[in-house]
């Protein structure tokens, strides 16, 4: 539909685009403004300060990075650690399962695929108590490894379906050729299947990483205090739930947390959209 509309309609479309841009950008812009403001208040008394930087200081950033009174960098390291290992574990486990579901024909395959989807209908919040008890029994409660385990398995269903969807689109003939040349199933997976699934691997890794990075509920329950063991989201939430909220510090922390993610998403935009429509979402 590339017919050029009437001028009035075109103007309306630009107005709509402008409003949506404002809507999409303003919260982020607001945090950036607030992070450079002196004092603990998010708002300024002059209205102009809500929209353009009327004052700017790096003090909030310095405090957050200094580790006193909030161990921000430790939180960040914890989150990186948890999200990183979650990503690796997810890729290892889910990719091989997805490859098997896509390539091999075996008894219980359809059942397994549907089971995967159906059990995901059980709300995660409600499985927290038994998961916590199980982790306690295995001495993994209050440990980052326990959290990694919970995240990995929580991500498995989604990642397995995503990867399976991608493997399904790769023609099997290439692997068959490899097998005729003497590859076993494991070799054909490692040497032929995996290299061709690179785009899907990238998307899966990104989503698994972001899942671990931004998750809050499991982290808040499975890693109770002390402060230094917390992940970033739990730490930031605790920051915003103190008596007098240090908004300036919070905003500075939020900027340092969000901006890298936005840059990564912008960079991967094409793959993200393509990968999601290829995998579990598309019919």
């Amino acid at each position, binding site marked *: 539909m590339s017919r050029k509309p009437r001028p009035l309609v075109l103007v309306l479309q630009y107005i709509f685009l402008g409003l949506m841009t404002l809507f999409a950008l303003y919260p982020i812009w607001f945090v950036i403004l607030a992070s450079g403001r002196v004092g603990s208040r998010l708002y300024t008394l002059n209205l102009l300060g809500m929209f353009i930087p009327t004052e700017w200081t790096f003090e909030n950033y310095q405090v957050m990075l200094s580790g006193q009174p909030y161990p921000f960098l430790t939180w960040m390291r914890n989150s990186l650690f948890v999200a990183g290992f979650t990503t690796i574990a997810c890729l290892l486990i889910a990719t091989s399962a997805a490859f098997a579901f896509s390539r091999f024909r075996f008894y219980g395959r359809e059942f397994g695929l549907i089971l995967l989807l159906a059990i995901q209908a059980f709300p995660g919040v409600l499985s927290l108590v038994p998961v916590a008890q199980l982790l306690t029994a295995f001495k993994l409660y209050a440990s980052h490894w326990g959290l990694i385990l919970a995240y990995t398995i929580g991500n498995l269903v989604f990642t397995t379906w995503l990867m399976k969807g991608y493997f399904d689109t790769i023609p099997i003939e290439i692997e068959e050729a490899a097998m005729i040349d003497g590859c076993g199933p494991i070799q054909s997976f490692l040497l032929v299947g995996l290299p061709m699934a690179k785009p899907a691997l990238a998307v899966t890794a990104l989503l698994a990483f972001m899942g671990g990075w931004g998750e809050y509920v499991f982290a808040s329950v499975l890693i109770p205090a002390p402060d230094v063991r917390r992940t970033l989201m739990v730490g930031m939430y605790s920051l915003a739930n103190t008596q007098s909220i240090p908004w300036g510090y919070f905003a500075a922390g939020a900027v340092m947390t969000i901006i890298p993610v936005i840059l990564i998403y912008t960079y991967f935009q094409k793959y993200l959209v393509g990968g999601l429509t290829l995998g579990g979402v598309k*019919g």
Partner: protein
Amino acid sequence: MVSWSGRRKALTILAFIGPTLLGILALNIYPIIYNVYISFTNRNQYHPNPDCTVFLTSVIEPGCWPMFRSNAGMGQPYVIQEPLFANYDSLIGKLFTGEGVLALVKLALLFAPLIIAGQVNKRLDRQLTRPVSSFWVWIGGLAITVLLAWILNVGGAMKTLEASSDFFIVVFRTLLFVVITVPLNYIFGLILALVLNGDYIKGRTFFRAIMIIPWAASTMFIIMSLIWQFFFREQGTINQILRAFGGEGLAWLANGNYALAAIILVNLWFSFPFCFNIILGALQSIPADQYEAADVDGATYWQQLVNITLPLLRPSVMPAIVLSAIGGGGFQMFGTVWAMTGGGPSQGAGVPGATELVMVYAYKQVFQYNAYAKAGAFAVIIFIFLFIATLYSMRISRITQGAYE
């Protein structure tokens, strides 16, 4: 594939899917079974501990397994409820007594005109020339619904239901939230995608890049929800702007309806980029000759939209819509509500707060009131509901097509 012998094949396949299977069993299937069992006991803050002499308890509680046997804490052990379904009973409350059923029937009757309108439309579609457009049929259906609501006094019925069961209020409110928020997200996504799909718009790449920002930020929903919460505070941004124009501020999040509206708005912010990208992808896969043919036939923009674009979007967008509706941005919404209102504003002691959606309610039951057994029963009912919804969504979207090829 190349044939290989049975045993080796089984071992290879096990090696590939074994870890997944093990993980799913331990951290997905086991919690489900555990919740089912707990829902038949009286485990709560007064009876928090397992009684390992009971056979079933000793099987299901990790603390009772011989290798992990830990000292039982203080406090009473929990026992199986007498009668067995006591938790389910107390959860559903007086929903299924005479008054409650009458109110439920009244509520269900409201959907009749809409269903009939849908059927009428289907029948009219089979005719060569429609006497009335589908739009007017829907309007008629809606008008009859409103009339019916007035005749049946549905407001009164709602009050009866709200008084009779927590469960009903929470689920009803969540469904209401889903019915508003999901279409809203997709309508905004659709309009945006339609606008940005036209190649006459300058700076399309720029706008598309902008729209990914809330999507990226939505992965850290806790932080962004806290920022949004600030906008709605009594001393927040929105009130500040209102005051600058001489208006009077409101405590937005202290009013139940405004709080729910605020959450819907924030959820729109989080979700519209995803909807936009999904729809844009689908739009670009519609072949251009469809529109060229329609242009030759003299179809207007609206005719093209209704008769070409929307029907062709349906197969690829419908699954995404259903998944959003039952997923974390819809029925299972938790994080945004938790950070914005924590389920409040309170509506009195012992009554769910005004924005207490299903997951928030369950979380509070477990972590604030330690009502494990009640939450377990709640989980089981919700699970059955979501399970059916998932199976239905698979039917709609034929996600399992690959599984049956």
